[in-house]
């Protein structure tokens, strides 16, 4: 058992923290990044590539740096702390995750170097308007067509789908709408004429898109993973993303916790710093408790995200999401309440952290969804 970072991990952490601090330390800079044509900073994206962040989780043989979920955790926590808007989750964790974990040798050779060098941005087009949080609910179809497939359907709220250069699209190749079998994954070029995208900003300052596929044709090399057997891969990649977002949430919660304590020390009412009021002190203490509980579960999720036993991984990540959600809700609401009016303004950063944390709560399943998953599995095992 060992909670220390290795020397390499510490170096990684230092460099990510530094770049985030440079690029996001003053909160106005975030607005500048958002104002770019893609809704995030291409300059920063290049910087992440130079630092090796974009190739981090991929095998060295594939052109990556061979990092584990721990390395992703380190990056995402720092990104959460700065409320970074670049599409790391969409490209490296989600899109890249499919290539890494399900891609053929040819697909990996073709795509990973381009992800790593920053030239390829990806997105995962999966959720459909009727599906809500049910991962197997896929109505989009892919009909065989020669050696390839033709895809019809619509996907919603595709994170960073508007600026992606390549999409991973789930589609039904067999079975009924919510069958576990019969889902396949395809690489789709969003520039194809049969693909329509409508991009928009999201409540938490990121970007997303509604995407329609009106008979776009993909070739034989477009399928990622086993035909009809895509769900297990989806679950694996989504769990990886949930672990990553857990770390992002911890970074954001830590920022809120620190900012709130600082505010309590400086803001005066009734002639004294409001941090001298015991009721507020206790709430701040509870924020710390919630943060540390969340941090523990983000570590747990990172450890378990690479586990081969799918059932064990699923339950562990679900547990992490439940704790992250509870802590995020508590810390977000408390940070706003303890700040008072100023936290309600667009100008001040606290509200933006609160909004991001609120949206993370519903990212790939709300608390109830994950609690049910744990309950259905008979509870948490004794994995540690």
């Amino acid at each position: 058992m060992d909670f220390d970072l290795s020397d390499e991990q510490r170096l990684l952490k230092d460099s990510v923290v530094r770049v985030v601090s440079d690029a996001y330390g003053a909160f106005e800079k975030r607005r500048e990044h958002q104002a770019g044509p893609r809704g995030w900073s291409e300059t920063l994206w290049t910087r992440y590539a130079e630092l090796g962040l974009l190739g981090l989780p991929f095998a060295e043989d594939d052109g990556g740096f061979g990092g584990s979920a721990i390395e992703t955790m380190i990056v995402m926590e720092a990104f959460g702390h700065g409320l970074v808007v670049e599409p790391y989750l969409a490209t490296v964790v989600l899109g890249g995750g499919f290539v890494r974990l399900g891609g053929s040798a040819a697909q990996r050779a073709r795509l990973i170097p381009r992800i790593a060098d920053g030239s390829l941005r990806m997105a995962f087009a999966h959720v459909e308007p009727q599906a809500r949080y049910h991962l197997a609910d896929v109505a989009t179809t892919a009909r065989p067509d020669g050696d390839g497939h033709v895809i019809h359907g619509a996907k919603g709220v595709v994170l960073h789908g508007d600026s992606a250069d390549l999409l991973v699209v789930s589609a039904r190749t067999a079975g009924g709408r919510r069958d576990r079998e019969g889902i396949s994954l395809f690489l789709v070029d969003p520039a194809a004429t049969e693909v329509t995208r409508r991009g928009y900003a999201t409540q938490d300052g990121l970007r997303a898109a509604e995407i329609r596929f009106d008979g776009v044709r993909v070739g034989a090399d477009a399928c990622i993973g086993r035909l009809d057997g895509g769900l297990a891969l989806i679950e694996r990649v989504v769990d990886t993303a949930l672990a990553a977002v857990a770390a992002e949430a911890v970074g954001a919660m830590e920022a809120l916790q620190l900012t709130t304590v600082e505010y309590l020390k400086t803001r005066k009412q009734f002639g004294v710093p409001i941090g001298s009021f015991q009721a507020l002190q206790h709430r701040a203490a509870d924020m710390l408790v919630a943060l540390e509980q969340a941090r523990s579960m983000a570590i747990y999720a990172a450890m378990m995200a690479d586990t081969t036993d799918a059932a064990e991984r699923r339950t562990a990540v679900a547990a992490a999401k439940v704790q992250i959600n509870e802590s995020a809700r508590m810390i977000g609401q408390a940070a706003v309440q303890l700040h008072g009016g100023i936290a309600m303004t667009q100008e001040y950063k606290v509200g933006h952290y609160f909004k991001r944390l609120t949206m993370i709560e519903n990212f790939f399943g709300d608390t109830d969804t994950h609690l049910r998953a744990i309950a259905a599995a008979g509870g948490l095992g004794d994995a540690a």
Partner: protein
Amino acid sequence: MDLRFTAEEIAFRDEARAFFRERIPAEIRRKVSEGRHLSKDDMVAAHRIMHARGWAVPHWPKEWGGQDLSAVQRYILNEEMQRAAVPPPLPFNVAMVGPVIATFGNEAQKRRFLPPTANLDIWWCQGFSEPGAGSDLAGLRTRAERQDGHYVINGQKAWTTLGQHADWMFALVRTDREAKKQEGISFLLIDMRTPGITVRPTITIDGTHEVNEIFFDDVKVPAENLVGVENRGWDYAKFLLANERTGIARVGLSKERIDRAKALAQAVQVGDGTLWDDPDFRKRVAAIEVQLKALEITQLRVVAAAARQKASGKPDPASSILKIKGSELQQATTELLKDIAGPYALPLTDPDELSNAPPVGPEWAATAAPVYFNTRKVSIYGGSNEIQRNIIAKAFLGL
């Protein structure tokens, strides 16, 4: 002891219900229900329809437009208005400055201000809060110096709701810097067109322009615009803040949201059925409804008690209870709506200028998250819930 309304009260309720649903334009009510932006015209229109019926200022003295309504009738009016998603008569006019002028103003002020205030010919805003004085209102620093029949005002007000529409402001200003905190404060009426006033929007986290910062730079206000006695403004402010003891809980508003949540859940597909078929979802709704029912009855009890006693002007533990639970339930219901929207809570639509493009996802979902974000304010403003707990502990429990 009987919780039920009398036959007369039921008749009044039915009359009010029909009035609000039939007379207030459906488009305005839909905007309120969905948490969309209301224009100034929308608010003025609704206000004047109610005033024409005598229901904008029923609690005012009769000579200034008041009606002889019982406490229960006033409660019913308020409830039915909220449940029909009617924008309330402008509270700055009808619940705040109006009663203060009617009680503490001189005859000239009454004649000059009360009729246009009742009819929303004057739009008032409240100038109490300052950047440095949130929960600690008595710490305010905006100062007014008397010079040649005028007060000259310098300073800054913050969180001024709908100040961008205002014709006049009623403000607390410091007229005696030597006096102790609560003393030395006066209650002034300020024409917003006076030179030296700057209104700067504060955009809130839901993206709306609802509140403002207002700056005063050598603003000259005629001394005749002082209400009551100089340096006694704190008393009038306390009177004003204690005035609305029951409306604060907003039970009708939360009920309307629950009704909406139920209807929307029946339209949200989950698996083979809808979200409403999920027993856990229903249990969550039921748990909120239980607390809301309890709050409704608590409020009725307060109304019944108020019917027998005049407001004392002191902080009232009952109104603190209503404020705490009421704000918690407003937050619980807006959070529920946000969660019903699910993934489609995420897309951002600028709430102030809905474009002609079709919304992303279901139309109702567009406001779900912003309304949840915006509603975090209700446990902060009007005396934060922490302040309310202090009031209960000190004023009522004697701790």
